[in-house]
């Protein structure tokens, strides 16, 4: 077809309408490339049709462009923003998790420390109590020594059984009480016990005033003996467990006279 034939046929209008089939369309595309007149005609048709469409509708509101813009471009910004905040969010959650874990660890180690410190406190408290007890004991002993009614009697070691041994008796005749300091005595052998005797001199009469059964377990080795008859001296012998009726003189450890 010549350029004129294309133009006269009316197919160019349909080409611009977009209602041709694919083969026809290809043919016109080729004709446009070949004939400048065909191209010019197509452009004229398009101009007319464009003007016709533009003038057969109300004006387009500005909102349309704004909406398109918002949908296409601020939508992109919006999809970027979440990804930014998402990263921050994840980072914050990880930090929080690490923080919580750290605090949990801190908490349990503090609790362990607290338990340890509570135990130490308990120990210290017990020590204070026992110290106070032993202080009270010591004070009561001191008071005893200061008592004007007290008589202090040295019981030196009696050769040959125990030349090194010694004891001390604090005798209160008014209260009929004896405090015996037996620190100078050796530990009694297994199955044996120290027996304390009150002595009257003319004639020599020993009276048993007590067994030092708990010699091993009393730390300060101070023993209190009561209901002491009037005495002129004191002696300590080693006797079989349970004590004896009369002192075994071969085993006389210490002896002292007022």
């Amino acid at each position, binding site marked *: 077809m010549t350029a004129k034939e294309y133009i*006269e*046929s*009316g*197919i160019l*209008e*349909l*080409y*611009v*309408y*977009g*209602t041709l089939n694919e083969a026809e*369309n290809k043919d*016109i*595309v080729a004709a446009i490339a070949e004939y400048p007149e065909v191209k010019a005609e*197509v*452009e*004229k*048709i*398009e*101009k*007319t*049709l*464009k*003007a*016709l*469409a*533009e*003038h*057969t*509708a*109300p*004006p*387009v*509101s500005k*909102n*349309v*462009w704004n*909406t*398109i813009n918002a*949908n*296409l*471009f601020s939508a992109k910004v919006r999809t970027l923003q979440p990804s930014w905040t998402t990263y921050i969010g994840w980072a914050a959650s990880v930090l929080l998790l690490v923080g919580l874990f750290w605090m949990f660890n801190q908490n349990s180690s503090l609790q362990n420390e607290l338990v340890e410190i509570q135990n130490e406190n308990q120990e210290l408290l017990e020590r204070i109590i026992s110290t106070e007890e032993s202080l009270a004991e010591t004070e009561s002993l001191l008071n005893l020594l200061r008592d004007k009614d007290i008589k202090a009697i040295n019981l030196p070691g009696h050769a040959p059984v125990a030349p090194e041994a010694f004891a001390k008796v604090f005798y209160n005749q008014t209260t009929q009480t004896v405090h015996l300091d037996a620190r100078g005595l050796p530990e009694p052998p297994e199955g044996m016990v120290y027996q304390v005797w009150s002595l009257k001199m003319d004639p020599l009469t020993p009276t048993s005033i007590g067994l030092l059964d708990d010699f091993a377990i009393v730390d300060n080795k101070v023993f209190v003996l009561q209901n002491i008859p009037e005495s002129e001296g004191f002696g300590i012998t080693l006797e079989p467990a349970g004590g004896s009726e009369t002192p075994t003189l071969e085993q006389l450890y210490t002896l002292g006279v007022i």
Partner: protein
Amino acid sequence: MQPDNLIELLQKKDQKAFAKIYEMYSESAYGIIYNIVLDSDLAEEVLQDVFIKIWEKADTYSTAKGRFFTWILNIARNAAIDKVRSKSFKNSKRNLDADNFVNILEDSNNLNLKIDTIGLKSFVKKLEPLCIKVIDLLYFKGFTQVEASEQLDIPLGTIKTRNRNCLKALRANMGE
């Protein structure tokens, strides 16, 4: 007369080029849509979708397929026809008084119609009634020649030339 530079930039996702393309083609696309949908709010909805599609599918256009105007025309026409067939459209009120571009131009209720700077109204008034129908079906409604010949009950062979002569008359009136 086709803005090939702009089209190329658009295909490279240039937003400024897109804005210019919108400026150049939105009114004509809207005219096509409005002629099918006959409701300005719905037509604007369709126009939005059409230009979003133009942005997203710009790379599928090539000069080998035809005019860029025709490409937009097809997108607009198809979107408008889809809208008309949709349930939401069928349930909505339509302007039943106007059903072609001449009626739209003459619709006295259409106070919003833009100022007719080129005096188009007087030109189209001079068109023969059959011309109006042919242009309406082929151009605005996208009918094929076969469909138009059946609809208008005129021989298939005469459609093309009749249409050309009608457009020529319009072009002559517009000073071409």
